[in-house]
């Protein structure tokens, strides 16, 4: 039902764009804002658009807000206990990264070009800046450890085949945002690749923001932590007393 609707919408779009074909790659999102409310369980968006010329491949790259990530490595201490022994910090690493394409990116883009564009695992590693000097393992091991955790949480995705191309003109891809996806601005870059290089590109911005009581509590916790603390204690006292009263009341009957 939804798919049929989008397809007809896209066909209408391409029909109106057809005369101007050759001009630019046009992309859009099913919605440009993800609202994190108390019922939020993650969300699936649609990235879609039209290609100015037929053929080639389409890559959709999504980067969430960046921050420094510290990865710790466990080692055996005194021959018995496993504890964190070393760490490495990667500066400005995206909290969410998705690479959606119609075929494995390595099949149509060479390593040099992928690195230049920052596409995929190896390119992210090459571009990352490190802080710390671990002796027991290479930075790449730490990096892979980070991506393993992010992949498990749905925060790192490489999905060749997620982009569908229709009639050489239309493309669409489903983008899954897990509930752990960080709030902030997401950059979505769509590229059309032909003969090993990018021929067209378009960018979109997606905002993930808390709303309603989630936003209020989060802002209070970080902006007015003392008030948040007082509230946490009072709410707990009242709620505990209230529930206790109810259960005791029932017990006496």
């Amino acid at each position: 039902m939804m798919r049929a609707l989008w397809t007809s919408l896209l066909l209408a779009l391409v029909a109106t764009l057809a005369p101007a074909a050759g001009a630019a790659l046009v992309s859009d999102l099913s919605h440009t804002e993800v609202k994190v409310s108390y019922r939020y369980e993650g969300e699936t968006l649609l990235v879609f658009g039209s290609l100015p010329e037929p053929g080639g491949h389409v890559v959709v790259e999504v980067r969430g807000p960046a921050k420094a990530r510290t990865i710790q490595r466990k080692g055996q201490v005194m021959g018995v206990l496993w504890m964190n022994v070393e760490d490495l910090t990667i500066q400005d690493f995206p909290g969410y990264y998705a690479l959606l394409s119609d075929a494995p990116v390595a099949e149509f883009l060479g390593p040099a070009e992928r690195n230049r564009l920052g596409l995929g695992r190896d390119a992210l590693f090459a571009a990352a800046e490190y802080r710390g000097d671990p002796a027991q393992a290479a930075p790449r091991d730490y990096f892979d450890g980070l991506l393993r955790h992010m992949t498990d949480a749905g925060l790192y995705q490489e999905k060749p085949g997620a982009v569908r191309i229709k009639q050489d003109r239309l493309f669409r891809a489903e983008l899954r945002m897990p509930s752990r996806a960080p709030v902030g601005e997401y950059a979505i870059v769509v590229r059309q690749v032909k003969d090993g290089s990018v021929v067209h590109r378009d960018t979109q911005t997606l905002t993930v923001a808390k709303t309603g009581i989630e936003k209020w509590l989060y802002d209070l916790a970080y902006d007015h932590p003392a008030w948040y603390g007082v509230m946490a204690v009072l709410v707990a006292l009242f709620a505990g007393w209230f529930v206790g009263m109810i259960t005791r009341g029932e017990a006496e009957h």
Partner: protein
Amino acid sequence: MNLYLPVAEMSVNIFVLLGLGGAVGVLSGLFGVGGGFLMTPLLMMLGIPAPVAAATDANQIVAASISGTIAHMRRRNVDFKMGAYMVVGGLIGSKLGVQLVGYLRALGQIDFVITVLFVVMLGLIGSFMFVEGLHALRGSSGGDTGGKKPKKTPRWRLPLRTHFATSGLETSILVPLGVGGFVGVLAAILGVGGGFIMVPAMIYLIGMPTQVVVGTSLFQILFTTANTTFWQSVQNQTVDIVLALLLLIGSVIGAQIGTRLGSKLQGEQLRVLLALIVLATAAKLLLGLVLEPDDLYVIGGGGH
């Protein structure tokens, strides 16, 4: 049915949390312990970050202990003078503990320290209670509890001795201050009420009569965990009110069931049962420390 937690920043199943709170609540009512020593590791297993699990647990214990404290006050099971000294110790200890959490988080060792402390504390206390409980079970067959308790003669005499009328004993105020302070530090780091340490300390170290021990420890826990909740919110931003409320709804109902169960069961049997639960938790955590982890790499707190 899922709910998104505002501070933990993740989506969790409501019924899983209600059930977890309920199970821990039964223990709380049965033994007069907060049950935090089970709640914190269980929350961590659900994927909630360790510092958030511990701090939120302290907040939940505030709620869980208010209803228990009121119930024990009505039955005149609280030694307020003893409790007041323990509260003062607890306030100082929990403030220091919150400071220590911030420091250990920056070092990246908070999870390790939490686990090691759990193993040591639970292992020691579990074994002690288990042995004592077995002795009591074998020794007094059906005798009334506390009646023929041997009078404790203190091995050392601390200064500042004072009389505690409700408990009917004389001891130095440094003892309840010290016990309260120690438990306060644990409350902040581990997110436990500390009843599982305080109850044996009050029985064996101070020599308080069994019937005021649970009420007085709940009284201390209430103030210490409230203080912990406040300072964790201010310094570490790790208290999730929504998560705490869900846990407490389960735990308060569970606590009522536990309290009623407790009055029907024998004290010595309960102590052996609690000892076994404590030992099992310690063993589980110890395995996590000595077995090679599935993934050597972990993502540090980093924070916001």
